């Protein structure tokens, strides 16, 4: 086949299209336009270098498994590098985004480059979020119990269950990094394909009559730059950036380490605050707890599930995908385990099961009221005498089971050997007030801008500032549908970020703000000097 003949195979067509659009000398060019002369251009490569550090440290963590970093000094150090490189990734990505906005970098058929970059930012947020959920410490417990509400309200929670640690870990180490890396690669290829966006046209009043052909005053962003160029070593810059970032994150990791507050167990809760545990467990038995009346994706509670507008609810649309009967899941089934060898408990359970709903409600209501004045003798609850039926004995035994650690195991048991789904224990913990009290001390509550915060004095997810901001202002501070409404707002704003090149008012802001004059000041100086 001659060189000019069109290839007849699919492979040939793909080769011709790919290498025709992006020949190696363009992909790995050794020159770049002379106007690329500002420090703002280093943030893109620093973002990629940080991603290399994130992926590298993540691979080491994957090799040694999810619990390694909790029990090993070296593991903790590698996790610290992972954390600080993730912080560096967002740090430089945000600045890169700002600079590209002020340069109106979507001009000249570069809208897709901007859009892919913005999607990278959103994908990175999702990847980091699942990373926080996979830590297996107090922070991940709290984040998962809080994040579930937003995700459930948007209907996503029925498929993307943040309380299922195994699912989140797989999303974090496989699916989302894969998507993110592919998007970043596509973004970089588009940058190489279209070239670096040229400066906005110079001010005509300052432009001399005789232009310097090496510095045209109004370069067309849609065609390739034909003006002055400079030598440029892409690979050297990348290697230097990776080296610099690795040095910084290794120092930060060694000096500041990473946070790792121990997770809360149900045993710990039942020992430290037995009254709170009993009140919560009784509410679960009565079907009156938050989880019992949550609505989709857990229960069929009529009218439950947050609305975005009027009575429109994505949560109800998604349906009940993770069915939960709190009385059975949190009380009756776990108690059935010791009940097999305890006749008194077995009889109490049988009596409760055979009672009418109204009788059960009377017992649980009476016991809940009695718990307001509960005291403890040798670890066992002591309440005033009353008509509690078998509930008092059941709750006493459940407290003992919880304090011994038996309930932690019973709630995880799924009839199989391996357990990775923590939906039940986390829902039970979140129904009590103990977890909330601990989170409040660490300023992690929603009303404390908690989504941005990390345990201790570590920097957290500062990039979630806008999301957590809405929870601080009316009407969301008092709205029953705050999660659904804020998710809807953030979805619209995220879409707006992606579509900035097409939004009339927003896309004209860079020209008005004139920050680009600082970025390309050398270029404008040369243009205004003119030829000769």
């Amino acid at each position, binding site marked *: 086949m001659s060189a000019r003949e069109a290839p007849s195979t699919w492979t040939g067509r793909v080769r011709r299209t790919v290498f025709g659009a992006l020949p190696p000398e363009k992909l790995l060019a050794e*020159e770049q336009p002379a106007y690329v002369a500002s*420090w703002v251009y280093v943030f893109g490569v620093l973002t990629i270098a940080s991603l290399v550090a994130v992926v590298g440290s993540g691979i080491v963590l994957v090799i040694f498994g999810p619990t390694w970093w909790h029990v090993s000094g070296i593991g903790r150090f590698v996790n610290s590098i992972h954390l600080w490189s993730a912080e560096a990734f967002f740090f430089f990505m945000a600045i890169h985004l700002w600079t590209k906005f002020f340069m109106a970098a979507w001009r000249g058929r570069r809208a897709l480059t901007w859009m892919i970059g913005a999607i990278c930012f959103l994908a990175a947020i999702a990847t980091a979020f699942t990373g926080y959920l996979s830590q297996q410490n107090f922070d991940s417990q709290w984040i998962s119990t809080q994040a579930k509400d937003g995700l459930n309200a948007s209907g996503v929670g029925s498929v993307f269950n943040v309380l299922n640690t195994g699912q989140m870990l797989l999303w974090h180490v496989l699916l989302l990094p894969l998507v993110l890396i592919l998007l970043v690669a596509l973004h970089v290829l588009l940058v190489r394909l279209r070239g670096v966006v040229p400066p906005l046209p110079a001010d005509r009043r300052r432009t001399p009559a005789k232009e310097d052909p*090496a510095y045209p005053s109004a370069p067309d962003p849609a065609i390739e730059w034909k003006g002055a160029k400079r030598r440029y070593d892409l690979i050297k810059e990348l290697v230097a950036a990776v080296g610099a970032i690795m040095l910084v994150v290794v120092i930060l990791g060694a000096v*500041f*380490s990473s946070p790792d507050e121990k997770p809360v167990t149900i045993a710990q809760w039942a020992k430290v605050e037995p009254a709170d545990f009993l009140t919560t467990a009784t509410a679960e038995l009565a079907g009156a707890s938050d989880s019992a009346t949550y609505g989709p994706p857990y229960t069929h509670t009529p009218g439950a599930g947050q609305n975005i507008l009027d009575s429109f609810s994505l949560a109800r649309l998604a349906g009940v995908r993770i069915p939960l009967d709190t009385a059975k899941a949190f009380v009756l089934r776990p108690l059935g385990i010791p009940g097999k060898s305890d006749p008194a408990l077995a009889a109490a359970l049988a009596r409760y099961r055979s009672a009418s709903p109204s009788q059960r409600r009377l017992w649980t209501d009476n016991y809940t009221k009695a718990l307001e004045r509960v005291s403890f003798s040798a670890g066992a609850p002591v309440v005033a005498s009353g008509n509690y039926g078998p509930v008092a004995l059941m709750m006493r035994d459940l407290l003992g089971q919880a304090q011994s650690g038996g309930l932690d195991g019973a709630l995880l048991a799924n009839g199989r050997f391996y357990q990775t789904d923590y939906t039940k224990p986390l829902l039970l913990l979140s129904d009590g007030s103990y977890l909330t009290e601990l989170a409040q001390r660490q300023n992690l509550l929603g009303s404390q*801008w908690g989504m*941005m915060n990390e*345990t201790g*004095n570590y920097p957290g997810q500062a990039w979630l500032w806008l999301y957590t901001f809405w929870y601080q202002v009316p009407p969301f501070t008092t709205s029953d549908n705050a999660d659904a409404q804020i998710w809807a707002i953030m979805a619209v704003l995220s879409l707006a970020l992606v579509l900035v090149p097409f939004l009339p008012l927003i896309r004209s802001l860079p020209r008005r703000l004139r920050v680009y004059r600082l970025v390309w000041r*050398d270029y404008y100086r040369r243009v205004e000097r003119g030829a000769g």
Partner: protein
Amino acid sequence: MRRSVSYKFRSGKGARSATEMRVRRKPSDRRLNRLLRARFSILRTSASGLYGFGAIASILGGRPHYIHFGWFLVSVANLVVIVLMIVVFVLALVLPFPHGREKR
């Protein structure tokens, strides 16, 4: 009854037990062992050194420090990161960039 057996691979002065045979290796292996021990010793020292940094790490692991501005609450760590981002951005805009040789 279990019989006590001592295996001898050589007779006389140079005789060694099976256990000895497993432990004693040729000189190059011993050098490798020494090297590996030294390397692992470095690793162990590094790990304990990293724990030694605990005093500094505890600056970030201790009681949380937050700043309140009315309804606005921000951790000192997040504020430092945000301010640093703005400073780095401004510096990148205003600092002169080293120029390479130009081609026309």
